[in-house]
């Protein structure tokens, strides 16, 4: 290591390379593309590259520590597993396309052990794939067992396709990060309200959800919300995050109707501007009595499944937020007795079942069939929908714990 005039250590070129490789490796790790098995979005790209470029063997390779991962391939061609044998590792050392017309005539490749096999790559052309922050993490390549020509037009196509892969990676990364942020906005446990437990799940059909559930302590108990913004995907998710924040800001109101009316006022212009609307269930629980006051703004999918074997669908009387008419929201009340379960679902649960209100019978059955724990009930209700629900799916469960017998 060199020592500068002021006594600080300067980095040697070797250290520079090591630092650069660390940055490159971290960029690859953040993309989370390794070890996921075949990925259709990559396979679609390599299939198209094969057709456009007239090559049987096309692959997307990522360079990870000392090895190469083949994320997609169009044939059973053999790609190096050791990074030191990888052609793509040479390709990512430069910014442009690497074309190897005949590996046997190229000092960098002629000793490659794979060349000794019948499937060895005599011809190779690869273009680097960069992460969103510009680190070259892998390459897309075409190859053949015999030397072939590869003209300027083919190089342009390969470069364009590499850019397509980059865009896919960037988009996927952004969606994954957005999903993490959104999941982070969901409450985890209801620690402050003794005698009750709550759990929920919010499973988006795309990366992010237009539904959300929420709870937080308020004076004398806790507030609960389940809301569903029109549509799905990012537009709906932006609206749902806005609704969540606005509802929380209204938690200083004592009544649920006042909280919803205040939120509706605050949201009116935003919902109008986005030409959207939101259905919503909002409730306040009084911890000592189990009384739940609630407003249902066009949501209509909340049940109380009682320990005594009965059940009740909570009345929905109000209009959704954002439909534009002078709406008033009536406050209703229901008592949660010991062992009772309140379950509110988004219409994704309906759509995943038969699409009718009969689905609520199945929801009740799932609640009763599950172990008496909020988390287990959530899992059972969400499980009704199966893994391929057509819409965002959200379940919120509030359970009042069974009473402790007096003088026991």
């Amino acid at each position: 290591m060199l020592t500068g005039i002021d006594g600080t250590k300067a980095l040697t070129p070797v250290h520079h390379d090591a630092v650069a490789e660390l940055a490159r490796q971290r960029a690859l790790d953040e993309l989370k593309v390794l070890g996921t098995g075949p990925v259709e979005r990559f396979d679609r790209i390599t299939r198209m590259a094969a057709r456009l470029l007239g090559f049987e063997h096309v692959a997307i390779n990522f360079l990870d520590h000392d090895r190469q991962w083949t994320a997609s391939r169009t044939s059973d061609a053999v790609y190096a597993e050791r990074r030191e044998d990888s052609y793509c590792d040479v390709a990512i050392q430069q910014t442009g396309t690497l074309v190897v017309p005949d590996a046997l005539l190229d000092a960098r490749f002629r000793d490659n052990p794979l060349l000794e096999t019948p499937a060895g790559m005599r011809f190779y052309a690869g273009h680097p794939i960069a992460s969103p922050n510009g680190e070259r993490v892998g390459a897309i390549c075409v190859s053949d067992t015999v030397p072939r020509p590869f003209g300027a037009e083919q190089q342009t196509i390969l470069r364009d396709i590499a850019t397509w892969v980059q865009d896919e990676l960037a988009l996927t990364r952004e969606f994954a990060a957005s999903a993490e942020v959104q999941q982070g906005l969901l409450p985890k446990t209801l620690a402050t309200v003794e005698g009750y437990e709550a759990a929920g799940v919010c499973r988006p059909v795309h990366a992010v959800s237009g539904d959300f559930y929420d709870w937080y302590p308020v004076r004398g108990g806790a507030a609960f919300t389940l809301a569903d913004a029109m549509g799905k995907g990012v537009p709906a998710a932006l609206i749902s995050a806005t609704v969540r924040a606005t509802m929380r800001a209204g938690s200083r109101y004592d009544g649920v109707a006042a909280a919803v009316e205040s939120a509706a006022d605050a949201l009116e212009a935003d919902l109008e501007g986005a030409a959207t609307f939101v259905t919503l269930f909002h409730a306040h629980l009084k911890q000592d009595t189990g009384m739940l006051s609630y407003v249902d703004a066009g949501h209509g999918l909340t049940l109380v499944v009682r320990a005594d074997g009965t059940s009740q669908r909570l009345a929905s009387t109000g209009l959704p937020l954002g439909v534009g008419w002078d709406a008033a929201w009536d406050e209703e009340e229901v008592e949660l007795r010991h062992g009772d379960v309140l379950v509110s679902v988004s219409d994704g649960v309906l759509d995943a079942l038969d699409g009718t209100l009969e689905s609520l019978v199945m929801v009740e059955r799932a609640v009763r069939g599950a172990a008496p724990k909020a988390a287990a009930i959530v899992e059972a209700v969400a499980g009704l929908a199966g893994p391929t629900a057509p819409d965002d799916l959200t379940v919120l469960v509030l359970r009042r714990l069974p009473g402790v017998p007096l003088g026991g």
Partner: protein
Amino acid sequence: MDFPVSHLPDGVAVLRPAGKLNMVSSGALREAITGLLEAGHRRLVADLSEVTFMDSSGLGALIGGLKSARQAGGDLRIAAVGEQIRMVLQLTNMERVLPPFERPEAAYADV
């Protein structure tokens, strides 16, 4: 989705969307409604007899169309809804704002 438009003898314009009224197709319905309003029509009916499924985006298109129609001094009414659409309207309490009529011809029988 294509929206055939017909006109009743009393000047009511009838839109007839078909298939699924969802995120994909709801934009076209909105545009068709806007187009009719811009062309001077004031009394509109969405005949939903050929709609097999409507989700929240479809309902949003009807709500948006109703708002536009009323701002223009007109109205949008709906007719011939199937079971699934009726349920969406009931769940959201929107049947109070968009009461479904049996047939398009009945939608403006009161005026």
